[in-house]
């Protein structure tokens, strides 16, 4: 592993390897640290933080579907103040790179969250959630509107020098248009994809299986869609991409990197195998050895179409 360079750079953000734990699948790090050495992971992306605490959606919030799961958590989180006071101390203890995911229902709220978090040196980058499918206000509505996404990116960029990553919705006709606007307004990178809107019914009661009616589909079922979106961005926009969507194994991770991703995030797999992150890093390293690759960046967008 020692002679292979797995480090990647996204804006000012330097990662020791390209494997990140996705927002909403690692909480604020403390639970998953019992299974995996977070200092070995490229970085962790926190559960979305909003200005005020959010209670989240009523049950039932999750249901398994074929090869995936639907969730409608509703951005349940402790709010920015409690995050700073009670969650950041743990994040400081572990030697991991922290990316703070932010959700908001107005442009001003995104800006205010960043203003409050900006002094926290542990936070190396922000991932801006404009694509949560499970809240009525904000979230996905911003992610489906080119001018709203542009305004948010622009305002966020103007209040921080830290790396800004815009997390894109796949529920649009051309995701690369959104990546292009994000780049033009100053984002350092995009992460793609957030979950796909889906639903499931109980045929006996004829009611949706989750209370919110629709939820976000994640897991291996969405991997081909996510890969196609990453490839579309890679072929049309010159911006670093963090690939997300159904990555379960190192082979999946390599596929995303080939399709254009500089780094990847793993999500649903953390629920099933909370030590998947370190296993995927080892697999990527072994792949590089077998392929006589000395630097993982050589693999990014190395597709042979």
């Amino acid at each position, binding site marked *: 592993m020692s002679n292979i360079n797995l480090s990647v750079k996204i804006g000012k953000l330097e990662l020791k390897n390209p494997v990140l734990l996705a927002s*909403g*699948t*690692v*909480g604020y790090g403390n*639970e*998953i640290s*019992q*299974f995996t050495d977070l200092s070995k992971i490229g970085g962790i992306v926190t*559960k979305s933080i909003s200005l005020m605490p959010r*209670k*989240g*959606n*009523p*049950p*039932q*919030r*999750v*249901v*398994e579907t*074929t*090869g*995936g*799961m639907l*969730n409608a*958590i509703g951005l*349940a989180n402790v709010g920015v103040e409690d995050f700073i006071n009670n969650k950041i101390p743990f994040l400081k203890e572990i030697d991991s790179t922290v990316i703070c995911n932010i959700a908001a229902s107005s442009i001003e709220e995104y800006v205010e969250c960043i203003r409050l978090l900006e002094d926290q040196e542990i936070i190396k980058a922000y991932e801006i959630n404009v694509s949560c499918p499970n809240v009525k206000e904000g979230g996905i509505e911003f992610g489906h509107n080119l001018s709203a996404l542009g305004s948010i990116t622009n305002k966020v960029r103007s209040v921080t020098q830290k790396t800004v990553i815009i997390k894109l919705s796949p529920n649009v006709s051309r995701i690369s248009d959104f990546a292009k606007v994000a780049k033009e307004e100053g984002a350092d990178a995009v992460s793609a994809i957030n979950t796909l809107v889906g639903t499931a019914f109980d045929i006996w009661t004829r009611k949706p299986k989750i209370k919110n009616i629709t939820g976000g589909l994640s*897991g*291996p079922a969405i991997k081909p869609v996510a890969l196609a979106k990453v490839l579309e961005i890679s072929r049309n926009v010159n911006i670093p991409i963090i690939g997300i969507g159904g990555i*379960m194994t190192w082979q999946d991770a390599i596929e995303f990197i080939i399709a254009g991703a500089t780094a990847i995030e793993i999500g*649903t797999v*953390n*629920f*099933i*195998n*909370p*030590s998947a992150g370190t296993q995927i890093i080892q697999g990527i390293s072994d792949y590089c050895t077998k392929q006589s690759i000395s630097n993982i960046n050589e693999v990014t967008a190395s597709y042979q179409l």
Partner: protein
Amino acid sequence: MLIENAKVVSLKKITGKIFLIKVLSPQIASLAKPGQFCNIKVTDNLLPLLRRPFSICNINGDSVSFLFDTHGEGTKLLAGKKKGDALDILGPLGNGFNYESDFDLAVIVAGGMGSAPFPFLIDALKKRRKNIICIIGGRNEKDIITYGMKNIFLSTDDGSNGYNGNVIQLAAKLKDKFVGKKVQFFGCGPNAMLKALKEFCAVNNFNCQVSTESAMACGFGICQGCPIPAVEEDKYFLVCKDGPVFNSRDIIL
């Protein structure tokens, strides 16, 4: 909590579609407390994708046993396991029952599969020389699970075995046995039963702990998929991490 690669020791049918699986899982066996659960991966592939949560039924030395009902794909696969098969188990999870408090009589109320966590609790109560009454019910005779229970009173909705009615009606009939004693109720079963038990205990001023269940993905607090409304305004608990056992006064059922 940890992930252990357990080995199936035995699988036996208890009644109808109800099975008991016993696995060799020394680390989890050494850590587990009554009322906790494990999240089990029933295959080593992606179908089904998620783990399945099961109450720990009992611990015997290095072995952990789980009672389950074959109602879906995951549990059907579990029922097909053979001695020596590997099983990937994450646990022990959740808080478990509090059975160290000051009481003389434990009244266990179980509906259907709700019997699952009680054999382990009963063993712990016996060691502490507590008196135990078990009130066990189901829709019909086939739903009744008495495995590992003690001093049993039965009820069925259709009257096919024991008292003709539900467990709460039976508890009301048995009330003379509880009055004047320091009583602790422990309940597990369908939500409607737990709700009725909560009301019964509130009216009669009995302490009551209920073991709840919920759909969940991870089982240890990161997916936030298993909320249960708290009595405290505008708040949810997580069944996996704050529960699955709650004081019935603290939650809205």
